């Protein structure tokens, strides 16, 4: 792993103190039972209930387009910059590229994140890139790349989904030609429980095998064309569970679309009124 | 303090049972892969190397690099992370592999008729799968075979071999990893064995200058021996390919 020489890091042998607290001594099963009790989650939601979304454009003044999303406690800032020539590339390419950088702020998670991208962040960047490339008219800017940065200020689960939705808004507000609106949603599965838009704890617990079936599913959908622009799943799930989750997640993604549309209309109106 | 274990025993045998002037078993094959223009695989003892040649083709990257009177020979040396006893962290990019790439380039440029292909580039990639001493010689020999497989005109074979000095007196040929770590001096020679030209000479550690002629002579003899082995493989390969069109029967 690359080491950051410019900053002073905590000693390598340091261990988060939370490992020694009372919470950690409970078995995973108990922890999960606490997370969902009588069909109600810790934050009072029903399993199929999505958290409230707040979306705003024009948050970063220097960026061409930017968006800020709040999904419960999860907060993500995305910014999009002007197309620029692809660096270190000598041959011509017909389609433009999207460069994505997904980053958790050092203070966004219970454990401190380093300033450099780790492998999880790199994986998220790759997923974001694939999801967004399907909705952007890339032949409009050959040989150029558009930079998209997503910074997670607070990670309370479903950060990647929030980032993809916000990045779609930021791209639109930057005036990058797009085919469609993109929305994304996450589902955490453990046994027979399917939790929509999981928070940090639920997401973490679903990645561990407590029951035979468990996993996290992320779906990115384009709204008008009804196409899956990216699908990612981890864990261990049966085919039926996955096909069901595709349908239900698809519906959830549809529900987010009006929020995105409203936000974009608002930003267009404000630009018009300014001019 | 007791003396280090002798490299050659009283009865003239080395640690792996060879005599001083004996090479390890060399086995090689041309045309291992279909994607590259030429490829080869060589085993020298336990050292295993794959080489691939692409080109001559248009110069990649900046056109400014192209030369009007010769082809560019681009070499990359890379070692699989599992090739050594202890796992390597990176397959290439460290100082040792960069040095190896440069040395490889030096040896190959001397043999390739670069003046025949102006404005072009020839890529030579070598991949070490198993390192057991004498990596550089194995790479040069594999690259030669790959160049021949690619049909690139060479002045002649370019072969490399290592030699060492045991017990301050006896020159030894083709040093294995075990002998390298036991610590004898190692002289690496890359040569054009037919015209008896040395194209690269490198040495680690020390011995008295008086010993140099005989160690060098041993190493050069090794290059000639290796050339003969490679020659057999190449002619067999040509016959095999040719047998489909019957020109392999001609002598």
């Amino acid at each position, binding site marked *: 792993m690359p080491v950051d020489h410019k900053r002073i890091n905590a000693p390598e042998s340091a261990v988060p103190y939370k490992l020694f607290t009372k919470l950690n001594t409970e078995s995973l099963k108990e922890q999960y039972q606490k997370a969902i009790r009588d069909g109600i989650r810790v934050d009072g939601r029903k399993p199929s209930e999505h958290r409230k979304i707040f979306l705003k454009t024009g948050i970063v003044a220097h960026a061409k387009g930017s968006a800020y999303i709040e999904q419960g406690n999860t907060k993500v800032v995305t910014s999009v910059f002007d197309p620029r020539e692809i660096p270190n590339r000598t041959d011509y390419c017909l389609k433009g590229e999207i460069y994505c950088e997904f980053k958790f702020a050092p203070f966004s998670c219970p454990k401190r994140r380093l300033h450099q991208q780790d492998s999880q962040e790199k994986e998220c960047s790759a997923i974001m890139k694939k999801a967004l490339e399907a909705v952007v008219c890339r032949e409009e800017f050959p040989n150029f790349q558009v930079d998209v940065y997503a910074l997670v200020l607070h990670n309370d689960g479903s950060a990647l989904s929030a980032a993809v939705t916000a990045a779609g808004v930021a791209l639109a507000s930057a005036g990058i030609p797009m085919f469609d609106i993109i929305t994304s949603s996450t589902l955490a599965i453990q046994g027979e429980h399917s939790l929509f838009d999981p928070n940090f704890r639920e997401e973490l617990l679903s990645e561990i095998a407590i029951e035979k079936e468990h996993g996290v599913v992320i779906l990115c959908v384009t709204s008008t064309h009804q196409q899956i622009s990216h699908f990612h799943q981890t864990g*261990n799930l049966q085919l039926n569970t996955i096909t069901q989750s595709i349908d239900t997640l698809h519906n959830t993604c549809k529900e987010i679309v009006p929020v995105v549309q409203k936000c974009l209309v608002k930003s267009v109106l404000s630009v018009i009124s300014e001019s | 303090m007791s003396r280090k274990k002798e490299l050659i025993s009283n009865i003239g045998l080395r640690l792996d049972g060879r005599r001083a002037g004996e090479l390890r078993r060399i086995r090689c094959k041309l045309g291992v892969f279909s994607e590259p223009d030429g490829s080869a695989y060589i085993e020298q003892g336990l050292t295993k190397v794959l080489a691939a040649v692409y080109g001559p083709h248009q110069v990649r990257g900046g056109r400014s690099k192209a030369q009007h009177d010769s082809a560019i020979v681009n070499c990359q040396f890379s070692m699989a992370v599992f090739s050594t006893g202890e796992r390597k962290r990176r397959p290439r990019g460290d100082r040792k592999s960069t040095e190896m790439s440069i040395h490889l380039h030096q040896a190959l440029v001397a043999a390739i008729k670069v003046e025949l292909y102006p404005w072009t580039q020839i890529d030579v990639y070598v991949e070490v799968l198993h390192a057991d001493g004498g990596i550089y010689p194995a790479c040069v020999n594999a690259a030669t075979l790959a160049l021949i497989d690619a049909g690139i005109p060479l002045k002649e074979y370019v072969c490399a071999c290592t030699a060492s000095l045991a017990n301050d007196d006896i020159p030894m040929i083709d040093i294995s990893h075990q002998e390298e770590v036991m610590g004898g001096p190692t002289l690496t020679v890359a040569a054009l064995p037919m015209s008896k030209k040395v194209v690269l000479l490198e040495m680690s550690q020390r011995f008295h200058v008086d010993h140099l002629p005989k160690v060098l002579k041993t190493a050069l003899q090794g290059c000639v021996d290796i050339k003969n082995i490679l020659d057999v493989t190449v002619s067999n390969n040509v016959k095999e390919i040719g047998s489909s069109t019957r020109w392999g029967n001609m002598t």
Partner: protein
Amino acid sequence: MLILSSEKTDNPARIERTYYLISENIRIDGREREDYRPMEIETDVVSHAFGSSRLRLANTDVLVAVKIEVDAPYPERPLEGKLEFFVDCSANATPEFEGRGGEELAVELSNCLSSAYRSEEVFNLKKLCIMKGRKCWKLYVDILLLEVGGNLFDAVSIAVKAALWNTQIPKIKSINVDGSNIDIQVCDDIFSCTKLDVTGAPLMVTVCKIGDKCIVDPNAAEEQCSVGAVVVAVSRGNICTISQTGTGSFHPDTFKSCLILGISVAQRLEDSLTETLGEIKANQDVGFLK
């Protein structure tokens, strides 16, 4: 009959038009949509490693070696060993991989592998624990791509499974704990080793969409023609990872049919791999000289 044309979009100088008769269920090399190309697998290829395999799937050539080291477990998972995947794209495969050119592909492959092996149901890391919270085995699975002829994900996953199947973990004779010093004695007998349980190790199937039909095991030209592919990692009939490659998008119904196809093909692949591995004898002649 549907005839599809495709262009190598990234380089107009090398525009190639290739035609496929996918909808007739005949591919350019005579296969049907669900057919694989011939495969050759060898184990015990790298003598430095604890387990290794080499897979040749038509023109795709993959070499996998497993190395084992003793390490300390992660503090948040004291009972588990470690498993790490490293992919190296050799420039032998294509000059584009020279220097750091293959890194993007390498990261994509190793991410997909590590997320497929993450679940405990798939691969039990607890078996790699030596002493709770103090010592565990760390498996380095190093993958070397020697030639790329399409369908890398499938080839790599099969080779990794074979290499893990081949892996021998040394037996521990005794552990001496003296304060913070832990002294591990490994069994002297080199033949007394334990084998890993790889029955759940996932196999990945790339389902490639060309036109409105899906095919498995695309060759390099078919990969160029398709806009996107779904990689389905299947373990014991369950799906443990789904990922998409390429930039295309899918209709939900197409996507579901891809998954169904992926699972059924993976099951067939699994059966034939188990059979083939069972037939492998010790001291068989292996390597590149054959």
